[in-house]
Each structure stands twice: as C-alpha cells, then as structure tokens.
C-alpha cells in the first residue's frame, strides 16, 4: 500500500475517532431538543393551597351540571376535559355507596354538591373528591385528595396520599396518615398517632386539650421587630438561667439550654442542640442546626427551625392568631396539647405523640 495513502487513511481514522464523542453534541446543537431554559416556578409561591385551587379551577367546566343536580336532586356522570370520568351527587349518594360496597377503588372524580357526604369505612377513593358540604369519612379509608367547602372529618386510621383542603375545620381521628398537604381556612385538629408532613391553618390543634390562649399569650414578649439587631455571641455550650430575662438576640456556637420560665425578648440560634425548659417564652425565632426540644407550656413568637429533629411538648404555643408562623424540621414529634398558628411542616415525618 502506498505509504502516503496509509498515512492519510490513518489520519482520517484518528480524526473520525476524535470526532465521535462530538456527534451527539453536534446533533443536539443542531436540533435544540433540550435547549429550553430550566423550568423555574414563576407564578406560584409554593402555596399549600395550590393544588386545591387548581382543582377548583379544573372542575369549573361542569358547574352547570352541578347546579342542575343540586336543583333537581339528581346524580350525573360524565367526562372532564382531560378524559377523566366524574360523578356528581346532587342529593343522595347511592351510586357512590354502590361502588364502594364492591370494596374496589372508586375511580371517577367524585363531586357532591349541596349534600353531606359520608363515606363508609374501609373505602378507597383513588381520585379527587369535591365536597360542597360536610365530608365525613369512615375508619381506615384511603383518599387521594379532598376539597371540602365545609368541614372535613377523617375516621381513625385513614390515609391521604396527596392533599386535603377544608374551607371549614379539618379533623383527623387517631392513627391517620396524612401524606402531602393538609390545609384549612379555619382549624386543623389531629388526634394521637397521626402522621403528617405539611399542615397549614390559622390554628393547628394537636389533641383535644390545648394550651390556654390567654395564659400563653401573656408570656409572649414584644414582636421581634422591635428588638435591637445586635447579637450576643458565645462560643461553646451555654445555659440561660431559669427565670432569666434577656433583651436581645443570642447566637450560641454549641449546645444551648434555656432554663424554665426564662424570657428571651429577641431571637435565638444554636449551632448544636437546643433544649428549653418549662414555660419559656421567645419573642423572635428559634433556630437549631441540630436537634431542638421545646419544653411544656412554652410560647415562641417567630419561626421555629430545627435542621434535624424537633420535639414540641404539651401546652406549647407557636405563633399566634395575629402573627402566624412556621414550625419546620425534617422530623417532628408534637405532643397532644400543643398549638401551632400557621404552618407545621415535617419534611420527612411528623407525628402526634401522647403528652408526658
């Protein structure tokens, strides 16, 4: 073989091999199949009611049907714009009960208007439910999502896989598993052994007996906004003495223990574990980079954030009706008798435990 030709062939071969990794790149550059900007959530702020609001919009198209069913007291079935089946119950709920008696999951979107809806025990509703009036669920039911225009009550050991929004009160009996978002425009009440992730309501009550609002609010000092912005900085573990009053913000690079009855008129940060005694009040935020344990009958005005775990004891109040707040940690255990005004958000697992 001609040596020049061989050289040329070798050169071409090597060039081709070098170009090989660039082929998919060149194809993508030309086709621009994945050239859109990354999707950034622009229009909503991650509101807990986002799904509920979207669902309300979604069923708007069958509003005339709902109105007709309410007026005539009839039921209707049909298909929504994306092909999903629906059932509208204007008066009685026989079609729903008939399907549930078969013990299979009920697949259509269920809409009840103007009538109270009672779902028998051990039912599975695998699509969204719209309840125009009261919603009462039996024990051990499984729901995907519920939008209730009035109160929503779940029986013991029920499960929600996506979301619930109640315009009225939302209550969950013992042992409910509330995965996803649960919100109410007035009140959420959870009983013992309930598991939750994200809750939001003006008032979230854990258990039946909750902290006395008047007594606890008297513990809360002035808003954090009026506190001087200077920080008291301490390296190492630190104890706030019982009954001590601190006017200002404190940053502790270590473990922090706040003694019973102490009052902090400002915010608190601990880079390790943070433990508060009985009846402590904090005017601003409470942040721990590790675990946090809030003792009984405490009052915290601002956001509460623990990066690992959070335990909230009975009788403790977080935020107030006028100043709602967020309580957040990957794992949260809240004792019966605690109250949160605003958001209670456990990224991994939240649970209601019996008070000590």
């Amino acid at each position, binding site marked *: 073989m001609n040596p020049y030709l061989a050289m040329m062939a070798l050169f071409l071969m090597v060039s081709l091999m070098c170009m090989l*990794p*660039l082929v*998919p*790149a060149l*194809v*993508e*550059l030309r086709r*621009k*199949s*994945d*050239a*859109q*900007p*990354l999707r*950034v*959530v*622009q*229009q*909503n*702020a*991650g*509101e*807990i009611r986002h799904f509920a609001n979207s669902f309300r919009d979604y069923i708007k198209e069958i509003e005339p049907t709902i109105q007709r069913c309410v007026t005539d007291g009839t039921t209707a079935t049909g298909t929504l714009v994306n092909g999903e089946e629906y059932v509208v119950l204007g008066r009685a709920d026989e079609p729903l009960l008939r399907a549930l008696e078969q013990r299979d999951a009920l697949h259509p979107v269920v809409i009840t208007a103007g009538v109270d809806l009672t779902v028998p025990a051990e039912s599975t509703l695998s699509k969204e439910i719209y309840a125009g009036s009261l919603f009462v669920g039996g024990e051990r039911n499984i729901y995907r999502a519920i939008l209730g225009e009035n109160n929503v009550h779940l029986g013991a050991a029920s499960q929600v896989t996506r979301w619930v929004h109640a315009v009225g009160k939302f209550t969950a009996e013992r042992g409910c598993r509330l995965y996803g978002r649960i919100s109410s425009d007035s009140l959420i009440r959870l009983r013992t052994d309930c598991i939750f992730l994200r809750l*939001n309501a003006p008032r979230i009550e854990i258990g039946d007996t909750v902290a006395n609002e008047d007594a606890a609010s008297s513990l809360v000092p002035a*808003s*954090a*906004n009026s506190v001087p*912005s*200077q*920080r008291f*900085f301490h390296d190492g573990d630190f104890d706030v003495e019982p009954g001590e009053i601190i006017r200002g*913000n*404190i*940053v502790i690079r270590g473990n922090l223990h706040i003694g019973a009855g102490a009052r902090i008129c400002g*915010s*608190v*940060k601990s*880079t390790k574990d943070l433990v508060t005694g009985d009846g402590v009040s904090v005017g*601003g*935020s409470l*942040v721990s*980079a590790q675990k946090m344990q809030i003792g009984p009958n405490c009052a915290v*005005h*601002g*956001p509460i*954030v623990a*990066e690992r775990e959070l335990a909230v004891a009975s009788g403790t109040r977080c*935020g107030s009706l006028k*100043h*709602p*707040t*967020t309580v*957040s940690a990957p794992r949260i255990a809240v004792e019966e008798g605690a109250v949160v005004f*605003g*958001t209670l*958000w456990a*990224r991994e697992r939240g649970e209601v435990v019996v008070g000590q």
Partner: protein
Amino acid sequence: MIYLLYAIVFVICIYTGRHYWFTLNRLFGFQRHPYIDIDTADWPPVTVLVAAHNEEKVVANILDALMTVKYPEDRMLVVPVNDRSTDRTREIIDKFVEDFPGRIQPFHRAGGKGGKAAALKDAMELVNTEVILIFDADYIPGAGLIKQLVAPFFDLEVGGVMGRVVPLNAGTNLLTRLLDLERSGGYQVDQQARMNLRLVPQHGGTVAGVRLSALREIGGWNENSLTEDTDLTYRLLLNGWKTVYQNRSECYEEVPEIWPVRIKQIMRWAKGHNQAMVTYGLRLLLGKNRATLRERIDGTLLLGVYAMAPLTLLGWALALGVFYQGVAPLHGVIALLSLTAYAALGNLAAFFEIAAAARLDGTRKRISLLPFLILGFAVSIFSVSRAAFSQVSDLVTGAEFHWDKTERFRKVS
C-alpha cells in the same frame, strides 16, 4: 523547577479532590435546605435594590416582576439604583414610580465612582430595613422568590443569602448553552454542596440578600472591589456571619451571547476574585476571626479558584521544560497533571459536576453538549490567565481597575 511542578500538581490534585467531594455529596449526601419551608411568618420589612446601568432593554421586566411578587406590599420597597445611565433607563423607572405610587423609590445617580458597589453604597441612604435584597436589572424574580430569600434572615447567624441563577436565553447559541451547563453545575452542585457541608457558599451579588446590621458591622459596600459579591462573602465570614445558599430560590437571568462579552465578564470576575484572595486570603486562613476550621480551608480554596488557570498553564510549561531538560522519570506526575487539570479547573464547575447537575435537574439531551465544554475550558484558562497577568502588570505600572458592565442582549420591551 521539578519541585515547583510537584507543588503545582499537588495543588491541582487538591482542587480535583474537592470537586469530586462536592459532586458525591450532592448525589448521595444529606441535603440542607433549612429555611425553604418557612412559608408563614411575620415577614419583616425589606428593601429590594435593583442595580441598573444603561438597562433600558431589561429594567421594565424586573420592575414588572417585582410588582407582582407575593410579599406584603406595605413591607417591601423597591429601589431601582439608576447608576449614571445615558439611555432610557431613568425614563422607564420614573414611569413605574408613577404607576405604582409608594412602592418604588428611585435612586438616580448622576456622578460619582463607577461600579456596582459604589452605586449600592450611595443608594444605602434610602435603606432603613434590616433585610436588603439585591438584583441586577436583567433578572426576573418569580412570585415566591422574595419570601424565600428573606426567610433565612430569621436565623441570626445569617448575614447573606444567595439564590440560584438560571439562564433564560439558554438556547440561543453554543455559548449560551455552555454557560447554561456551567451555571447548572456551579449552583446545583458546587454551591449546594458547600451549603450541605457547612463550608462557604458564595454571595453572588444578585438574587441575593444581605442583613443591614451585618453590612454596617463589616463597613458597608467596598467600592474599590471589582466583585463586590466575593468581597462581601469574605468580610461577612471574617466577622462571624454566614452566607447561605438557597438552591430552590431560582431566578432567571440573561447570559452573554457573544464570546467577547463572555471573555470580558470572566476577566472581571477573575480580577475581582484575585483581588479578594490577596486582601483576605491570609487573614482568613491564619488570622484571628470567627470562621470555623472547615470554613477557613474551603474559603481559602475558593479564593484560589481563579488562580488555578495561570497555575495550570505554568504546570504545563514546567512539564515541557523538565521533559526537554531530560529529567526522568516524570511520567506519573505528568499523567496526573493531564488527568487532574481539566477536573480541577472550572469557572463555576468541573465537567463531572456539570454532568451530575444535569442529572439532578432532570434534563436529558443537553448533557450531550458536554464535550464542547473543552472549548469553554480553553477560552477560560487563557482569559483568566490573561486577567491575572494584567492584574500583576497593573500593580507594577500603578494602573487602576475599571469596571466593565456586561452587555445585554434582550430586545427592548
């Protein structure tokens, strides 16, 4: 000469290891997003500074977006900082002031020292809120962004906050697509890993926030700095304030669409970063300050990021030199240099960080552009090195730094 080569290879290996550590942490480690769940609070008053120098193409977009964000209207004041604009920027801002009475207070600056830091410094006379947010005029904040950027300030240790930057004009051409990948790696992996590991997430000076009391404590904006964001990060760190990164607080930006603009931008970043390295490097690593040990080490390495380019070039030159000197056997060292140089150097992220970021972002096809990053690498290594050399020569000749604004490409709205 050979010992110098050994030293360079050692340093490059450290940077390579650091990048692998970040990537593995991001893929398999514990992810820290401690403040992102704060969605209900007694939101504090906030001032939003919008830095604008000849921004007629983009300023209306950001003001529009800020007027529709979900934050209590009576607690948010927007201050467009019109820095000596000679185009229609002032006119556009004034129209917004008229349309949204009480919500926008413009700061029109006709003279004074050039540069963003100097403009922000002058605009501080209008600021009396504890929380300040800063945006460049080409950014478009989403509805929930302000709350997300304010939330970390409930933590008393936090002095600065940084959100994630996402290119809006990603698909325009090869350069924007490469920058989109780079940004993705830099934020999704590099910044978040530093947040996870409690190291030093960097303040970016835009889609960002700063606490007024912290800013006052560290002496305000440094108008002599070419990159006020890096400067701010280190002064906060030295004074015991944390800068936190919020990966889920995303905001669209515009990236350069032509190479000369990109080169100018990266040269400015390199000069500013090197300036901070000289000013704060030793003080951070060895001085008496409030930074933790891991922050001292990571902070020092972060300061040296832009010094890696000239160092790598020097390493290559030395490797060639010792080869022709006949020093042998050096195969291992040279192989290590070849392997690590590309993995250690990145303006925002190394190539495997970018690959990991693309996976985390859930994108598919854009990752096939990865081989083209070698082009960005080549441009960066020479531009950054050129910036470093010109910085040294400026030091010798006494020439002053000057601030170049990045050109915009959006059509006037």
